[in-house]
Structure formats: C-alpha cells, structure tokens
C-alpha cells in the first residue's frame, strides 16, 4: 500500500470517527443555541434513548418501527427534563446550570446501569456490512451511512429554523428571551421544544454509534469529550460548524495518532483537549460561530 493510499485510508478512518462526534455535537449546539446551556448530560440522554430503542427491539419490534418510536419518546423525554429539572433553576447563574446537568449525567448513567446492567449489548447495524473500494481505499457503508444521516439531520434543522414559523419563534427566544416574552411568545414552551429537539438529535446519534461502540452505560462518555471539542472548534452556535468541527477533530485525532510518534495511541485523547484550548485562545467563537457583541 503506497504512502498516499495509506494517508487517504487514515483520513477515511478519521472521517468515520468524526461523523460520530459530529452527530452528538449537533445536539450540544442545538441546546446551547436555544437555551444558552452547555448540556453535559447530552451524551447520557442519547445513551438512554439508545437503550429505549434496544429494549423495543428486544421485545420484538423491527428496527425501522423502533426508531421513530424512540425518537418520539426522546422528544417527549427531553421536554420533560427541561420542565422538571431545568425550569426550577432557570435564570440561575451558569455554574448552577452546569452543575445540574452534571448531576443529570451521573444520575442517568447510574440509572441505566441499574436497569440494564453494565454488560455490553449488541445493537443492530442499520447499514449493510462491507463497503466500497475507491482506488485501494475502502470506505465502509456504515461510515457513509452515518455521514448521510448527519447531513440530513443538519439539513432538516436548517429548514426548521430558517423556513418555519416555529423556527422563527425559536430564533426570537434565542436572540432575546425578554423581548420574545413581551411580544407574546411562551418562552417556557419554546425552551421545552429546544430540549426535546436536542434529545431527538442525540437519540439519532446514539442509535448511529451503538452498532460501532456496543451499547453500555458508558458508551457516550468518551464521545462527549470529542463532541465538545467539535462544537468548540465549529462554534457553539452553528450546526454546520458542529459537523465540520466533528469531522476535523476526527481526522486530526486519527492522523496525529498514526503519524506523530510522540502522540501515538497513548496521547490521542489529548488531541481534542489541545483543539479546545487553541480555539478558545485564538478564535473563541469557533470557525463558524458569531462573536457575542456587547454594547459598551
């Protein structure tokens, strides 16, 4: 295998990993955009949704029926979490909200362990095995499938925000909750909607990655760190940025692990942290984000 083919193959591996990070980063960005919260429990909610899908299939439901049911359950679940857990601390300092989401992380993780145990479960792969061969570089169908689904979700979100009245209302709440409330928008409901949507996108992410990572309560823990790096890199308020950021993080991590001897497999986990740090120093709003402007 030539050096070029090898580089391309590594890049494809990176894109495959990056698509996984991008899918969760989308959910993180979504919730941040509407509520200003960085939701540390996003990965765990996605894991919980995946267990719901697994449980439905274990009781005999086919994948393509279990999926929409799971998405609906996740949507309602996300709204409930907002109403029950987040609403009471709405308007509290950011640190309080962060701690509440961290608490939610620990609670959901432990609860999943209690209900489904910590042994790994297999999750059916919706995409066919194997892949296509492009000039010696093999690209798995699952990689292509994940990228396709992530792109579709991104497109749907764009349509929702830019071309529907619900999207307009959501943007109004995000831009200025006080004015939105004064003009008759039920801000609370919109925030619930934001959580519900984020949980649904998270559920898609969980269902996509579970066949690759195997389902267990800590499945999303590692993914979350990379998703944070992706969202920081792309900009916490840009869905396109989250996807591009995810792919870049995946590629950077894989190439650094393969070609930079000092990094190797040992320090691969450090790559996203370096990315987070550099972005925050050089361009805090991220590649695609808009800098917050305040009147002096």
């Amino acid at each position: 295998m030539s050096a070029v083919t090898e580089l391309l193959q590594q890049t494809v591996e990176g894109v495959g990993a990056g698509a996984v990070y991008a899918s969760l980063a989308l959910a993180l960005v979504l919730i941040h955009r509407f509520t200003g919260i960085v939701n540390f429990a996003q990965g765990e909610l996605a894991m919980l949704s995946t267990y719901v899908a697994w449980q439905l299939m274990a009781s005999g439901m086919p994948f393509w029926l279990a999926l929409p049911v799971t998405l609906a359950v996740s949507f309602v679940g996300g709204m409930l979490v907002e109403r029950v857990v987040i609403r009471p601390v709405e308007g509290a300092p950011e640190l309080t909200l962060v701690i509440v989401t961290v608490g939610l992380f620990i609670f959901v993780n432990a609860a999943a362990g209690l209900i489904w145990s910590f042994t790994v479960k297999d999750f059916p792969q919706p995409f066919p095995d194997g892949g296509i061969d492009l000039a010696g570089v093999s690209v798995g169908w699952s990689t292509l499938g994940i990228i396709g689904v992530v792109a579709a979700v991104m497109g749907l979100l764009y349509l929702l925000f830019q071309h529907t009245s619900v999207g307009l209302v959501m943007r109004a709440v995000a831009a200025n909750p006080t004015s939105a409330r004064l003009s008759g928008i039920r801000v609370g409901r919109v925030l619930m909607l934001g959580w519900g949507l984020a949980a649904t996108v998270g559920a898609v992410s969980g269902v996509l990655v579970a066949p690759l990572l195997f389902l267990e309560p800590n499945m999303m823990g590692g993914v979350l760190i990379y998703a944070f790096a992706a969202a920081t890199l792309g900009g916490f308020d840009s869905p396109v940025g989250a996807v591009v950021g995810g792919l870049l993080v995946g590629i950077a991590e894989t190439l650094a692990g393969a070609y930079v001897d000092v990094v190797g497999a040992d320090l691969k986990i450090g790559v996203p942290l370096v990315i987070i740090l550099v972005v925050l120093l050089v361009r805090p709003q991220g590649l695609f984000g808009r800098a917050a402007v305040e009147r002096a």
Partner: protein
Amino acid sequence: MRKKTVLRAAAAATAALLTATACATQRGQEDKGTAADGACKGQQTTGITDKTIKLGGIYPLSGPASAYGTISKGVAAYFKYVNDKGGIDGRTVEFVVRDDGYQPPKAVEEARRLVEREKVFAVFQTLGTPSTAAVWDYLNQQKVPQPFVATGASVWGTDEAHPWTTGWQPNYVAEARIYAKYLKDTKPKAKVAVLYQNDDFGKDLLGGFQEALAGSGIKVVAKESYEVTDPSVSAQMASLARSKADVLLNITTPKFGSQALAADAKITKWNPLHIVNSVSSSAAVLKPVGFKNVQGVVSATYFKDPADPQWASDPEMKAYRQALGKFASDADPANQFNAYGWAVASTMHQALAAMKCPTREGLRDAVRNLKDVKVGMLLPGVTLNTGPDDAFPIETMQLMRFKGERWSLFGEPVDTRKEFGPVTG
C-alpha cells in the same frame, strides 16, 4: 500570647486523652481473648471460634464492573452448601459481602469496616487490581489474611512485603506464556500484532508475552494501545490490520474486547489467528459480536465452563447446579462467574481445613503451603501449588477454541511454571 498557651495546653490534653483511649481499646481487644493458647500461643483468633468462622468479601455489586459482583453469589452458595453438610471441621462459615462499586477508596472503607467493626477472620476476597492494591497495605499492617484475590496481576505473587496476600487465578504473565508456547509450537515464524489496554493489566500481559517469546522466531510486528476513556478501538484495529500480521493478540477488557472482535470480523482482507485474553473471553463479550463472527478465536482457561455440555454429568458441576438452585436462586448457573466463585470458595474451604492452628497465622501459612491440591470445579490436570516464595496457586491453563456457540478445549493443560520457571517481579 496567653490565648496561644491555653490552646496548646488543650491540644496536648486532647492528644494525651486520645492516646490513652487508643491504648485502652487495644488492651480491651486482647482481654477478649483474641490470642490462642498451646502450640499456637499468641496467634490471632479474631473471627474464629470452635463453632464459627467469619469471612468478609468486597465485590463490585454496583457500578461499571458490577457484572463480576455475581461471583459473591457463587461463593455464598458454596459456603451455605458446606454449612448444610456440617461446616468446615465443625465450624459454620459466615460470609459477609460488602459493595465497593469498583472504587478503590470505597474498598478501603469497606476493608476497615470488615476488620474493625465486623471483626472478620480474613478478607476473602477483594476483586479487581485497583481495589486489591488499595487495601493490601492496610490488611498486611493489621496482619489480616487476604487470600485468593480475584485479580490476575502478577504483583500479588512476587511481592515479599505482603505475606498475608495471595493470588488465586493464573496471573496475566502465566496466561501470556501459554499463548507464547502455543505459537512457538504451531507457528514458529508468526508475525504478531497486539492490541492492549494502556494500564498495568495490559502491560503485565504484553510484557509477559514478549519475555516468553525471547529467542524464538516469532516477532511482534505491531502494537497499538488504547485508553479506557477512548470511545472505540477501530482506528487501532485499522492500523494493526495494515501490519499484515498473521496473529492478533487481543489484550482488552470486555467492551473493547467486543469492539476488537467485531472490527476483526469487519476487516475481511485481514484474517489473523485471533487470540483473546481470558478477561474478555466470556459469553457476555462474544455474544454481542455474533457467534458467527468469532468462530476459531482462541483463548485459555483453567476452570470448567458450566455452559459446556461436556461437564453435564460431572459430580462437582451437579452439586454446583443443585446448590445454586437451592441457595442462590437469582444466580444463573450457566454464568461462568458463579462457577468461578464456587471454585475459589472450595479452594478457601481446603485452605481453612488445612490450618494447623485455627488462627489468622495458621491460615496465612496454610494458604502458602498448598501441594497439588485438587478442586472439583477446576479442569482436570489443574492443581494448586504454593510455597513460602510462591503465592500463585494456579499456573496451569488449557487452550480453547470457539466453535459453534461455545468454547471447546484442545491440547493438554500446560503448567507454565514448569515450562518457563517462576514468575519474577
């Protein structure tokens, strides 16, 4: 100034008071008759009487490693079964189980509780390398036996500063040796790729493997490690596949074991002989990957698999199934961890029965003086041996290959100590 003096005096008084209390407590304990008479004079008899023995175990009943927690059910069922038949030398065993959630600080807390409040005779067992390492200093200082720990790290048997602690299952170095011997015998020119967990467990097994290969024609051509925090090992597997090695040694813990096995099945261009270490060889790891994807995978074991029909009429297996049904009806007899618990408890039974003095010192010496001891749940040909400088009871293993829906044994049991000499620290 004056205030300071007062404070200092108060501090001194408190210290004196504390010392006095501590001395009183210690003396109080001795007064209660914790020392034996006769030939065993002065030895500790805490937790043992003519009628009872109190043992305490620390297991992860909750948390990420809680799958191992069921071992305590196998152990408890064994002791109830023995008590039902009159106990060990007329003593009934009381077995107290505590949960550490696989967290070392919690293990320390529970060890103190077992020793100081429950006043157990011995801590049997602690599970997991991190938890065991966290409590062994304390238990050795207190001179409390910590026999047959449920972890394969090679440090338990080579350390001289902890005479009260011993291993039980084959250590990772011994396991690495049987794979090395197998390759030397069947593929003397093999090129090996290794996937390992970047911690003591992974390095212990990998180090043992490389040492055992020294001087042979077998080469390790690629090594990739992962961290337990990594989401997946698929990138590592892709790198290993490029090495074109003809053997893959898979040194992983369960989730990553499943991922590596699945990745190997997915990379159709690369079909190495896949050796999976015993930590990841349970059905719980292989089943999610799909049995059709793990055919021909090789591993090693030392005890009877309760799911293997070969042992269906084995007397020990029958007793095990019956006892589990009677005393631990919520435990699945087909689960290997329950059989493991049964096997290690019956080893403990033999050590307790072999004590020359019914004291903690007596148990310590008995545990380090096992000579060709047979345990029904272990494979035929696997016996337990220890000595003053050898705290590795089991160093014999047999290879197995995955066929159909279960493992099947092949070859003869290999005594790795005989083949390679003692494991050194």
